[in-house]
């Protein structure tokens, strides 16, 4: 397996960022994670460093030569610098939990970044498949195949009544977390989003903001996922989301349509101002960037901005986050310096979209 320099990743874009796939104007990405544990080891909270190391080596040996489509890259997360761990979190290749925990742990991912395997996260193994747009079946077919491949090589902890056994009882059974990342600016703008939350809670689906630290989503992105994992088949859990997501998409479209119809000028103004600020600011925070990019993304999808491709907008969400910025600048920056660097980066990237503009 070739040693990949983490810095080279910055020049590439994960396949799931391409803005392709069904309903990709509203559904940014679909993701499935499976939690698995090796039968011969205790769960991680009961492991000392020696056993952790043994688990990592056992899994690593089996995952690095899997046929997953494309070359695989492995990172020993413990050995990485803080900014590199954060970089992998921003790319959605590892969870925040894996980045911030201690001891032997690692991640293995494919070239297109659509498959990633986390070693020694909360469970011994977390498999993740990420795809552009609304494509849960595509995710499931792929992750199910990977799980089958792994099962030929490894014995997972399984109980006839309770299914796959996990460190936390909230994941037991299928060990599956199915989620869809949705961009819902019109529902947020009109405060209709509350109704969506209430409806989802009733059918035991969870809603989380993506980029925000707390529960408040930044940039109008919401992740919708299953809450329960036991007593329903993977198919049924997928179906739950497959059934409900189209109605949220429809709702968002309807509200966007109404906004254009009733307040076209005000909406166009808001979007143009957001675009203008991003193109000319000299210092800008991560939060403001998310917020304005969200307006711009909706503007592109409504045809109110016509010189900016969606994959570029998707990429800007990621590249303007702290670790990506520091990688792009190849230096560690404090928060104030990052705001200046972020503004400069945005001006440069958005100037390319406008050939007549001086950089």
């Amino acid at each position: 397996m070739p040693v990949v320099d983490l810095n080279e990743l910055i020049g590439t874009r994960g396949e799931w960022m391409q803005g392709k796939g069904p309903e990709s104007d509203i559904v940014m990405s679909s993701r499935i994670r499976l939690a698995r544990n090796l039968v011969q080891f205790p769960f991680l909270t009961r492991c000392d460093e020696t056993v952790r190391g043994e688990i990592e080596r056992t899994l690593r040996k089996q995952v690095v030569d899997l046929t997953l489509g494309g070359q695989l890259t492995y990172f020993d997360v413990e050995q990485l610098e803080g900014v590199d761990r954060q970089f992998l979190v921003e790319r959605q290749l590892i969870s925040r939990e894996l980045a911030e925990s201690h001891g032997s742990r690692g991640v293995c991912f494919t070239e297109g970044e659509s498959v990633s395997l986390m070693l020694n996260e909360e469970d011994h193994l977390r498999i993740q498949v990420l795809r552009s747009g609304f494509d849960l079946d595509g995710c499931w077919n792929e992750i199910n195949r990977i799980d089958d491949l792994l099962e030929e090589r490894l014995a997972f902890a399984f109980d006839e009544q309770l299914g796959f056994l996990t460190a936390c009882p909230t994941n037991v059974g299928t060990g599956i977390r199915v989620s869809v990342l949705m961009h819902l600016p019109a529902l947020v703008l009109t405060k209709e989003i509350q109704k969506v939350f209430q409806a989802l809670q009733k059918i035991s689906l969870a809603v989380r903001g993506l980029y925000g630290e707390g529960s408040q989503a930044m940039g109008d992105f919401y992740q919708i996922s299953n809450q329960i994992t036991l007593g329903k088949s993977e198919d049924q859990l997928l179906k739950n989301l497959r059934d409900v997501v189209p109605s949220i998409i429809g709702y968002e479209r309807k509200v966007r349509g109404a906004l254009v119809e009733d307040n076209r000028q005000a909406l166009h103004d808001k979007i143009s101002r957001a675009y203008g600020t991003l193109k000319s600011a000299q210092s800008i925070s991560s939060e403001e960037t998310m917020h304005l990019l969200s307006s711009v993304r909706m503007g592109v999808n409504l045809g109110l901005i016509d010189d900016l491709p969606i994959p570029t907008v998707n990429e800007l969400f990621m590249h303007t986050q702290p670790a990506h910025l520091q990688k792009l600048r190849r230096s560690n920056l404090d928060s104030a310096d990052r705001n200046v660097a972020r503004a400069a980066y945005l001006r440069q990237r958005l100037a390319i979209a406008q050939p007549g503009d001086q950089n």
Partner: protein
Amino acid sequence: MKCHRCPKVATLHITEIVKGEPEELHLCEDCAQQYLAQATTGAGTEESAGGLIKSPSGMGDLDLAELEKLVCPTCKLTFREFRNSGRVGCAHCYSAFRDELLPLLENIHGETHHCGKFPKRAPDDSQKRFQLIKLRNDLRLAVAEESYEEAARLRDQIQDLEHHLSQETAE
């Protein structure tokens, strides 16, 4: 002794473990009823799995003390540690704490039987029995959704499988 919540005489003495510390509650019969009702209905709203475990109804000092002694023989995690962290220590904890875990799982998931994917390396017999659980579950759903053709197909499959299984046990 006086009830903690009203002027009546306390007849029930409940020990709750709050953040790892035992906390004594002395209640009269009425208040105890109320308390226990809250303990069971309020359970679903908490985030951490450990927090979901309230004293089961009617549990006095004695039963709770018994629970406290529970230890997983494999990883040595005590039930008390599990209660505090919400994380089990190993696969065997699920057997060691099964009686206590099942109500908790019911609270979280609304079910206590897995009916999803089954590892291929599992014995053929248990695979079939498992398949049966899944099919029955699918059938219930098909009937609920009024997909009667699907339901008929599932019923045939179930009968086939039941037949196979009964033959195997007869052998």
